[in-house]
């Protein structure tokens, strides 16, 4: 594993300098550092979620339109366990376990239901969890949401480093998966399921594996979200808006690639900056418009995402 990490870094020397800058960044004492760190943390979360979505949709070709379900379930289970005043590790593990169960069902569905129908099923699943979290007031407190106990509070600098480490880990994990047997099985299923079957690929097994890996990753981000935001409300985690942002990051960066979602972070930074500048006044609709235009331009002129600028005509998978 250590050797692989070293090889990966050496093969991607371009990431070393930005990584060092990011590690040193919180040590700089300037007024807007809190703003910068928050901006980066949000970007990191979306990069990680986009990587999670990438496994399912980018590699395996399973268009998940309800990806917020994994993320939101992770956040909700985490905050519920924290409210029992258990160790954070238990909360993270419980959230991951719940997501594995959900992912198993999603994976099993994906074997039978394909393409747009799978997308609709996942969309419905996320909506179901949204309604559940709104209506099951005894457990979720409904629209008021849940609040994290004070004792689990962390300072911003620590949270930043956790987010950075999580992002690095995710990118490396995706790299390892893509290079492994699992990655080859995933892309084979995306490219041609019938041919894959005839070459001995167990479709159900690998689709469920993709779903589980993807869900556990999203669940970890959900757990992190709780530690960072300190509360969870249904509209913040279980709406299509979240799923859409995840998909946009992956699309803008380059879906089905290892490093694409990293580049996709620019769209989140842009979004946050524009919203910060314009505030919530009479121009509150403008960020959405700018957002939409950028997305349309990328899809029209760079269908393989920003990553295709760097790799030229080389492989997209």
């Amino acid at each position, binding site marked *: 594993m250590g050797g692989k990490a070293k090889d990966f870094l050496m093969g991607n020397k371009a990431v070393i300098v930005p990584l060092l800058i990011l590690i040193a960044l919180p040590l700089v004492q300037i007024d807007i550092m809190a703003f910068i760190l928050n901006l980066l943390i949000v970007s990191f979360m979306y990069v990680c979620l986009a990587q999670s979505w990438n496994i399912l949709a980018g590699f395996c070709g399973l268009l998940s339109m309800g990806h917020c379900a994994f993320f939101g379930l992770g956040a909700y289970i985490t905050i519920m366990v924290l409210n029992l005043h258990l160790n954070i590790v238990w909360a993270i593990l419980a959230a991951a376990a719940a997501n594995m169960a959900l992912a198993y069902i999603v994976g099993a569905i994906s074997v039978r239901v394909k393409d747009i129908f799978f997308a609709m099923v996942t969309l419905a699943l996320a909506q179901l969890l949204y309604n559940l979290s709104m209506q099951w007031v005894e457990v979720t407190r409904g629209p008021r949401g849940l609040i994290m106990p004070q004792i689990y509070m962390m300072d911003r600098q620590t949270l930043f480093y956790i987010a950075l480490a999580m992002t690095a880990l995710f990118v490396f994990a995706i790299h390892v998966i893509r290079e492994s*047997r699992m990655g*080859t099985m995933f892309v*084979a299923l995306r490219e*041609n399921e019938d041919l894959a*079957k*005839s*070459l*001995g690929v167990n479709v159900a097994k690998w689709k469920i594996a993709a779903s589980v890996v993807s869900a556990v990753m999203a669940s970890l981000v959900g757990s992190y979200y709780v530690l960072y935001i300190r509360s969870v409300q249904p509209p913040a985690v279980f709406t299509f808006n979240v799923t859409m942002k995840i998909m946009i990051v992956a699309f803008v960066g380059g879906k089905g690639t290892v490093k694409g979602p990293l580049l996709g972070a620019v769209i989140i930074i842009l979004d946050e900056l524009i919203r910060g500048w314009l505030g919530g006044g009479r121009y509150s609709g403008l960020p959405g418009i700018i957002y939409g235009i950028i997305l349309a331009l990328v899809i029209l002129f760079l269908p393989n995402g920003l990553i295709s600028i760097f790799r030229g005509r080389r*492989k997209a998978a």
Partner: protein
Amino acid sequence: MFFEVSGITKSYGGLVANSDISLEFEEGAIVGLIGPNGAGKSTLFKTISGYVVPDRGRIAFRGAQISGLAPHRVCKAGIACTFQDAKSFPKLEMFETILVGAYCRHGNKRRASARAGEIIDFVGLGGKESQMTERLNMFDRKKVELAAALATEPELLLLDELFAGCTPTEVVELLKLLKKANETLGVTLFIIEHVLKVIMSACQKVVVLDYGEVLDIGTPDEIVRSKKVVAAYLGEDYDASQYK
């Protein structure tokens, strides 16, 4: 018996695609399957490889029943196939396409890669490993499909019109490759083909289907002389000698 089909019947609504088909052959053979369009050749292949579940009948491979198994299990059992409509993984590098097949027997990446490399050399695609399959020409893509199937290390390989659309030179090259696979890798071949040159020069045994039923089984020489086959498929003015 190495491979045995007994009483396979499959109908789609009122249309009987396969009706009580029985045939068998020995290990190491090259067997042809011919017949007019719509005779049920591809349905029989799809039934053998697990894509179609037969209404009745039994398929046994080395004594074990394989009818009713899912396609990937049939492949694991040792029967690979290529498709009539030449399937591929368009956006994968050629090497990774073959690797998918090699992973069928080798879970370890290093061993699977080594196997894929051997097969690529075997079919003569060396040097094109990092090309995307969609960028290869039709003939190379056929070889990729064949190589991926061979990478699963089959004992029996079903080829559904592999030669369709090939030029005469390509037919000769591909035929050489198949004979080499049969001789050096010991793969038994079961071939659907309209290019009669292939059937006549390579096969030891030919099965003729017509209207979903077995019309005749015999050596190529017997088949071209069979009155029913000539009437149903080859045509009255068929001259067998031109394909020798």
